[in-house]
């Protein structure tokens, strides 16, 4: 088994963008599918101690998506939604992103996900998010701290036991 793939984040101070870069040991069409299928997204997208429900993910131009994050006992914590601008399998998805819990609407980010084929049936995913302001970007990145890291690996452990 090779060493674990590392996720890297590029977020320069004072900029309104962030890059999330990751390589996967799987072919591109598969990685693309895991990023554009509601059932599959729900299995990996949430913070580890939360339940993620995708109401829909409609990967076509003019399509849309919405998902919610709930606690284990079913209490909804957050909702997110956006429109799909482009979904070109298996190489590119461009969509908007909005967190519904902010005090005012309109703090929307544009996300471009690129799926690149690598040698050996591997795939590199680059997600580039551009926010309307530096404060929007920083706020979004910081909000993950509250929900993301708690009880980190529980869900992963559960998934591992299933296999």
């Amino acid at each position: 088994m090779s060493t674990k793939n590392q996720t890297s984040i590029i977020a320069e101070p004072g900029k309104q963008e962030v890059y999330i870069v990751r390589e996967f040991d799987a072919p591109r069409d598969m990685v693309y599918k895991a990023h554009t299928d509601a059932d599959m997204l729900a299995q990996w997208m949430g913070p580890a101690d939360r339940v993620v429900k995708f109401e829909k993910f409609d990967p076509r131009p003019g399509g849309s998506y919405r998902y919610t994050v709930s606690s284990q006992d079913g209490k909804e914590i957050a909702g997110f939604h956006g429109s799909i601008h482009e979904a070109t399998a298996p190489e590119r998805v461009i969509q908007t992103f909005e967190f519904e819990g902010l005090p005012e609407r309109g703090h929307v980010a544009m996300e471009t996900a690129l799926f690149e084929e690598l040698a050996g049936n591997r795939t590199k995913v680059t997600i580039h998010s551009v926010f309307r302001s530096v404060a929007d970007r920083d706020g979004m990145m910081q909000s993950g701290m509250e929900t993301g890291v708690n009880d980190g690996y529980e869900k992963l452990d559960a998934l591992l036991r299933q296999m």
Partner: protein
Amino acid sequence: MHAIRRDVFQAIADPTRRDIINLVSAQPMNLNSIAQNFDVSRPAISQHIKILVECGLIEITQQGRERYCEARLAQLEEVADWVEQYRRSWQEKHDRLDKLLGKMKNNKK
């Protein structure tokens, strides 16, 4: 109305403020000597310093008649931690995705 954010992230969001932090991290300086390093007006520099003070990155000390700005850099470590927390939350998601992709590959065989 939005509360005005006063934290380390707001402090470093502005390039002039980043330059001011750089300057005074080398040695404490008074407002005039800081302002001499910039093309913008003294009141503008003063405003930036006010924000930096409110964000806790600069402390003002009185030395005789002069007021000196001193850098307080410990807070900047918060920035690195914050990106690392965000990175770890994505690392967790992607680790779960690895497992899912592993399952998908097995199902195909």
